[in-house]
């Protein structure tokens, strides 16, 4: 038997050391779970041989993506064993024999292999970033996705100006968070404007403007050539003060094992929308995977969705993971980007709304009534609505301006028809109220007595009062509005 640290769990076990440490909780609420069917399939153990059914899932990696997948499988009652193997101990994937080999000579057979290997930050080749020993020099930090006012404070505690290298979605978010925390921030970005791989020019310029408005300096079209403590030199010769240099220069998916096993690899391990690699027994998810369906490189991986979708597929459902959406996390700058630049340019049906004065921009590229790609900026509701349509591939509603600008609240303002229901709680129509008036009910209380209008939730009281004043001579105002209901017509058996 080997000493490999395989984590074996079954569908009901939730407390193996590794999963506990990573806060896996199935049946997360307190209190006893009543009558959950106990599957308790016998777990496969390391080193055993023999062919495995597809239900026998081995997950490579033990980061958040792996934990999410494990949890989702448990929850969906996955009938077979689910094992997690941390990436560093794995030496090779033997696809032919469906086994994973570990450094200690162990062999781990699988039915289905899920690659959740994660990614590491990409450190650009700029002189001065590293110490001679190889680790990052003081003042150089790696950016992680950030949100909230506290995020900027968490990003760096070193006082002084910050330079953010790279204005992709993560760099832009980090710059905004730091600025919200009151820091002096400069962004250096090689493209023509921030998020240049994702945004068309109009949107990019609006975004640059929005950053500038918040006091963030943006150096577009520039690259860093050297870092010395406190200073960053750019290719155009400018020198920026940088007490902190925050690297937001992308990630490098861990693809080595996949590549060596002969799986197609691009930036990440290539998968289709069902998260399948070229090998039917191997899937990949999270930040090590690259969807072949989005032509423009990895977007912030929708890890929740991918774990849920893969777990659903492995437990028998036919599920695709929704396509990723880039969404900035600044609370006041609402930017959502869907689909590739190419799709944005090429889709046949284009809708554009451009309101530069108010920093609002929306561009929807539609194909067969579905959103193929979109950029939505400064329109928080539209960002949400278009994201839903895109992720679910649902047809865009006919009222397209309403989709972008919102539907006005539906208050039809009581059309003057006798059939209009004035009191919804008691289903009293305008006609019935007029009739009651004609029979002598001349104030709200009397109308309530006669018709029961106003006696439910009471919200039509004003309207009934208005009806009174409209019918009375100018002197007769509404009156007694709130006392309504006390003397309503009696409900009678028959």
């Amino acid at each position: 038997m080997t000493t490999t640290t395989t984590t074996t769990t079954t569908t009901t076990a939730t407390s193996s050391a590794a999963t506990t440490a990573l806060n896996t909780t199935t049946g997360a609420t307190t209190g006893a779970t009543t009558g959950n069917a106990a599957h308790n399939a016998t777990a496969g153990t390391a080193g055993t041989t023999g062919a495995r059914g597809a239900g026998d899932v081995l997950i490579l990696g033990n980061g958040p993506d792996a934990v999410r997948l494990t949890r989702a499988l448990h929850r969906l009652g996955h009938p077979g064993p689910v094992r997690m193997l941390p990436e560093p101990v794995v030496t090779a994937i033997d696809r032919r024999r469906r086994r994973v080999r570990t450094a200690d000579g162990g062999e781990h057979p699988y039915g289905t292999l899920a690659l959740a290997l994660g990614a590491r930050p990409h450190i650009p080749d700029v002189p001065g970033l590293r110490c001679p020993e190889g680790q990052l020099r003081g003042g150089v930090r790696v950016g992680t996705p950030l949100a909230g006012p506290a995020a900027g404070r968490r990003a760096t505690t070193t006082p002084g100006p910050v330079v953010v290298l790279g204005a992709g979605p993560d760099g832009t978010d980090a710059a905004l968070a730091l600025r919200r925390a009151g820091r002096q921030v400069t962004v250096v970005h090689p493209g023509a404007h921030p998020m240049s791989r994702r945004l068309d020019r109009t949107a990019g310029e609006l975004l640059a403007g929005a950053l500038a408005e918040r006091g963030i300096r943006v150096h577009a079209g520039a690259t860093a050539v050297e870092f010395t403590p406190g200073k960053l030199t750019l290719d155009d010769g400018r020198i920026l003060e940088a007490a902190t240099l925050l690297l937001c220069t992308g990630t490098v998916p861990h693809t080595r094992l996949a590549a060596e096993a002969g799986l197609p690899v691009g930036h990440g391990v290539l998968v289709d929308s069902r998260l399948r690699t070229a090998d039917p027994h191997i899937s990949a998810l999270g930040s090590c995977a690259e969807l072949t369906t989005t032509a423009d490189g990895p977007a912030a991986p929708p890890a929740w969705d991918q774990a849920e979708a893969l777990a659903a597929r492995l437990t028998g459902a036919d599920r695709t993971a929704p396509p990723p959406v880039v969404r900035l996390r600044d609370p006041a700058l609402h930017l959502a980007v869907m689909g590739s630049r190419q799709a944005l340019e090429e889709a046949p049906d284009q809708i554009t709304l451009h309101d530069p004065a108010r920093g609002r921009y929306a561009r929807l590229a539609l194909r067969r009534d579905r959103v193929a790609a979109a950029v939505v900026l400064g329109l928080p509701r539209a960002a949400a609505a278009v994201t839903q349509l895109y992720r679910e591939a649902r047809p865009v509603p006919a009222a397209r301006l309403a989709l972008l600008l919102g539907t006005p609240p539906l208050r039809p303002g009581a059309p003057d028809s006798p059939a209009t229901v004035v009191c919804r709680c008691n289903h009293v129509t305008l006609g019935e109220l007029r009739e009651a008036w004609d029979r002598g009910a001349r104030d709200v209380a009397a109308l309530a007595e006669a018709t029961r209008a106003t006696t439910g939730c009471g919200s039509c009281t004003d309207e009934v009062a208005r009806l009174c004043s409209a019918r009375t001579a100018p002197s007769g105002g509404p009156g007694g509005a709130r006392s309504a209901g006390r003397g309503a017509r009696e409900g009678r058996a028959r």
Partner: protein
Amino acid sequence: MSDRAPAPAGPRAGAAPAAARAGTPGDIPAGIPADTPADTHCPYCALQCGTRLSRAADGAVTVRPTPGFPVNQGGLCQKGWTAPALLDTPDRLRTPLLRDAGGTLAPAGWDTALDTIAGRLRELRARYGPDAVAVLGGGGLTNEKAYLLGKFARLALGTSQIDYNGRFCMSSAAAAGNAAFGIDRGLPFPVTDLAGAEVVLLAGANPAETMPPLMRHLDGPELIVIDPRRTPTAERAALHLQPRPGTDLALALGLLHAAVAEELLDHDYIETRTTGFDACWRQAREAWPERVEAITGVPAADQRAAVRMLAAAGRRYLLTGRGSEQHSTGVDTVAAYINLALALGMPGRPGSGYGCLTGQGNGQGGREHGQKADQLPGYRMITDPAARGHVARVWGVAPEDLPGAGRSAWELLDSLATPGGPRALLVFGTNPVVSAPHAARVARKLAALDLLVVADFVPSETARLAHAVLPVTQWAEEDGTMTSLEGRVLRRRAVRTPPPGVRGDLDVLHGLAVRLGEPAARYPTSPRAVFDELRRASAGGRADYSGISYERLDSGEALYWPCPAAPGPGGARAAPHPGTPRLFLDGFAHPDGRARFAPVGHREAAERTGPGFPLHATTGRLLAHYQSGAQTRRIAELTAAAPEPEVEIHPDTAARLGVGDGQRVRVSSARGSTVARARLVATLRTDTVFLPFHFPGAGRANLLTGTALDPVSRMPEFKVSAVCVEPEPAP
């Protein structure tokens, strides 16, 4: 099948000879003098609006709102106003019915009916054991009936197989509330407190339609409404969040995330009054509002705005309804909302709090006194040896004689007539053929039983399938108590003698128990006697009623449980315990006095839309009807307001399907299909349709709903199914 109630044109019930029942033992009041108004409560929902009933000499009953009753403040909804018509419904059951050899339900005398039923029950029990007989109760039964039904099941039948329809109603909120606070009382404060709030967040509740007079207390506060539909309640809101059905849990997590990220937490409160925040936050930290936006469709900006509104208000409440609770993630969803309320320091503070809007008339009391599979009276757990000991003592049996925990409502229904499952079912106060999920399967299971007994006052859809039907009293013909959504115990009072041939449920249980060999004294037939026993059985439990008496209630005291018999400070001569209008002000009901955050993470609904079933269907209630409609569909005025099932659908979606307003459509899910008229609603999400669940036959919304259950509460997923819609040719 046509089930439309004809206009009530039958003979006046009041014409029944008033003295006919004189001398009958039991809970049936003998002749009540005419013109003595009685203060009682509406027969329907958990608001339990106060109603004053008067009876004219000819027997006709009239209703008015009870002056001064604070909950409805002089208001009633259309259901309350028209309730007296139910007393005279022409197809009222007036005699027991037994299915004859030819398969038709034929009138029978009470003795014959009870002898026959008891005989069959004895046979089945002898052959298959006590769990071969099951009981399904309801949240509309009085406390007395619910209590005696639980006792009857455990002692006379010796079965563990008893549960009630409240599983379909508030079980998720109950489980989450118990876990967080140590006690589950719908509103742990009087309804009237709401009026003093600055902000109220309603998650999945539509009181403007389902409990209109409640809105009188929500006039002042700004409302935040979370509902996939733009309901009349949502129309009144300052902020309406419209999530995709089935994503409520993600939304609740997103709101907590926003509260943390915006630094709106009440750290002192978290520190001194709660435990478990860190574990809860570890689960929620991934739910940043933009991610939640992608899943729910609720703009991140609106999530933040909602949390800011709540945090900025001094007095604020967070209330959940079925929209949050009727999911396979229901307990976690409510727990996530409670986490938010705790993080902002709301529960257990004067003028603020968390509550659940109970649905059924006695949904609260009905779940406290022993008709739930795992509970004994006083909200005691049946698995707790001390609880068993106490209740066994009150009942005069040995603790070992009490069965253990049984199956939850859906699991119970699904196990009927399966090997090892019950072969007989006694139904009191519920209509599962219409209201249970996957209703067609339930109907098949019921049809396969050896014995189905239904006690009801109208021939409900379930009664029509029964082997034996027992006609029982209705609201204005009986005495008892109900516990409303605010935990206040209310008196239900009789104003009219029931028609001859009708008996009270307590009487029925007594008659059956005696025939099953039980001592007669163990099953009192007077509600007061049952209540006095219930007080003893509940003493010392979470829901302690021992200090509440008919005398105190009749003298006008407003008593909220817990209300122990033990006098307050000052010893035996002190005033009786005043009850507890507001819980948690001094601490929560856990041993350490602290509330518990629950570590809940994101989970999806059990069913997703896909190519075959591209739309979400969600179900709910209409203003004009109540629950399965067995009562309200018999009232002409209500049937006129909502005569038949309509499915709400967005005009765009309808246009794509070639469906026009008012056209008949077939809505189908993986379980079955239902037929309704399309009603185009432009404020609906284009991916969602809505169906009311009040209608019978082919119009049952529950033909669509699925059987995924919450792992803790066993609540079915009523609020989201994947469906498709197509035009349906005229019949």
